[in-house]
């Protein structure tokens, strides 16, 4: 049918074309991912062509589906996608695969059940958010006096986001293990400003809390500002996730205890390599879990 013909014409030109579809490029994590992919492409320009696209908004599933369709229709050979939703993207991926496109899933794992229902399997390369968040939570727990009635709050991202749910669960796992009470969970919408408002209100409502766990670093920065404004520097500990550039300052200043690095740049590269392997050898390598590293003030000073 039409799909295979256009794919055929593309491959006949030699270099395969790979489309990287991400979530919002407004998010530093994905911007880093894009940069990693572009750097990799620059070094391997003879091997493939790259098209990078993201959505305007983290949550824009419809646009991601459209992007899959558009990339398929313009005859890309492979799509490397960081899905905005673990279920809703599966049918679109299936349609792309039916049109002969190789699909690789990175970052956020597509739901196994839905994939099975659709009768497809898609190789996955990515980190385990929950485990990463648990590791961050563990670092924090060590710094809180264990068992002495320590209380914490969590600021989650957009509640419907898979990442946010995973990270929140990871944090909760760690806190449960250390016997620390989570007194409240509220959403900071992944953003700094709203997180700041939420954190300030939580500090008012629960003046005796010991830590704020944030599902990303932007929200952690918002929390830092709230803690400062409330005069709680040093008393209230904060952790984040993602290891964005801007968090390094507060980390060094001791305002933030830890964050997690998922190596966004390597994530995309691994995904592209995966796709290339399939395109070049026809063999499907196994799923790969990428590492999540904990970043603290010490690891930062060691790195220098």
């Amino acid at each position, binding site marked *: 049918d*039409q*799909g295979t013909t*256009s794919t055929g014409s*593309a491959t006949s030109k030699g270099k395969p074309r790979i489309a990287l579809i991400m979530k*919002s*490029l*407004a998010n530093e994590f994905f*911007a880093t991912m894009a940069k990693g992919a572009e750097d990799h492409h620059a070094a391997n320009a003879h091997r493939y062509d*790259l*098209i*990078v*696209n*993201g959505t*305007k*908004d983290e*949550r*824009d*599933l*419809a*646009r991601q*589906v*459209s*992007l899959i*369709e*558009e*990339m*398929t*229709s*313009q*005859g890309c050979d492979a799509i490397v996608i960081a899905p905005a*939703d673990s*279920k*809703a993207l*599966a*049918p*679109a991926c299936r349609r792309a695969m039916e049109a002969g496109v190789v699909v690789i899933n990175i970052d956020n794992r597509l*739901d196994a059940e*839905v994939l099975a*229902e659709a009768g497809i399997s898609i190789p996955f390369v990515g980190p385990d958010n929950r485990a990463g968040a648990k590791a961050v939570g563990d670092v924090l727990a060590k710094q809180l006096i264990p068992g002495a009635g320590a209380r914490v709050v969590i600021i989650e991202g*957009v*509640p*419907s986001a898979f990442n946010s749910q995973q990270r929140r669960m990871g944090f909760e796992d760690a806190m449960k293990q250390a016997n620390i009470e989570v007194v409240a969970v509220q959403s900071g919408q992944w953003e700094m400003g709203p997180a700041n408002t939420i954190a300030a209100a939580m500090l008012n409502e629960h003046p005796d809390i010991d830590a704020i766990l944030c599902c990303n670093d932007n929200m952690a920065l918002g929390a830092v500002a709230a803690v400062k404004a409330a005069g709680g520097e040093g008393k209230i500990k904060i952790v984040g996730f993602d290891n964005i550039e801007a968090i390094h300052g507060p980390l060094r200043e001791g305002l933030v205890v830890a964050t997690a690095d998922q190596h966004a740049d390597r994530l995309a590269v691994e995904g592209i390599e995966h796709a290339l392997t399939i395109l070049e050898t026809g063999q499907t390598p196994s799923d790969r879990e990428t590492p999540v590293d904990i970043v603290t003030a010490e690891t930062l000073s060691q790195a220098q």
Partner: protein
Amino acid sequence: MSDTGGKSVWHNIRQQVNPEYLGMAGVLIGLVVLFTLLSDHFLSLRTFTTIANQVPDLTALAVGMTFVLMIGGIDLSVGAVLALSGAAMGVVLVDWGWPLPMAICAAMGVGALVGFVNGAISSWWAVPSFIVTLGMMEVARGAAYRITNSQTKYIGSQLDVIAEPIRGLGITPAFLAAAVTVIVGHLVLTRTVLGRYMTAIGTNEEAVRLSGINTRSIKVYVFVIAGLLSGLGGVFQSARLSSADPNAGIAMELSAIAAAVIGGTSLMGGRGSVISTFFGVLIIALLQTGLAQVGVSEPSKRIITGSVIVAAVMADTYRRRYAAGRRRGRKPRKPGEA
């Protein structure tokens, strides 16, 4: 009436085809040419069917928006209502096991209900629709989160009858339905009494009221229609995603407004065309797809999209003014919109 056969045919075409459409078609063709030059893979039937299959949801919203703008109102809640009605459809399909036709009715019913509330508050209480629908946008979004527990509901292949391309045609039933919506909307606006009253209300509500027409209920109808169409948009989008997403349609009201305004609909009411709005939708969709295919960076996408929207409206303003100038030798006296 006709001097020579040729001239008269040409004259006829000029009379039939609204010059407005020609301008918009020009913009569309310009964009196609541009993207064809920029990307080897753009110019293909697949690209166009892909675009066609993406637009049904925005089309439904934009038609409803055109109606609301015609009466001098605005509906900021359409995106959230799309999500809410999609969510409602997801719930009744998946959790309650209703059959598809009933689920579609449920989605559109939810939309109509929200539209009714919008219309009732804004017209009976005389609260500006901007603020009523701004509030409703939050309420509907919250309701969508609530009924889905903030999670995307996977519906699966049940909806494929709507969103699966028709064999041999490449376009989906959803697109056909959207096209029908556009045609019906156009006829309602231009040929029916309701449409005439809508235009009139947008221009001079007082005059309409003084001729004994119940302007308030007409305004309520219009919001109900916009709600219904948002519900339809929700059906289209859920079908395309095979899921009901409570985050669907964020900021989509702005795209719908942009589509209508690019199509020459006035934000002050009284002037607008559903067909032109559809051209506006196509321009927006084409721009999105084209930029993605060229692989423009995200910040540049934003900058280009924003500029093109403004440029399109500027061009339209210029065309309108020029046309008015040629016809009457001067610009219309009506005070400009701020």
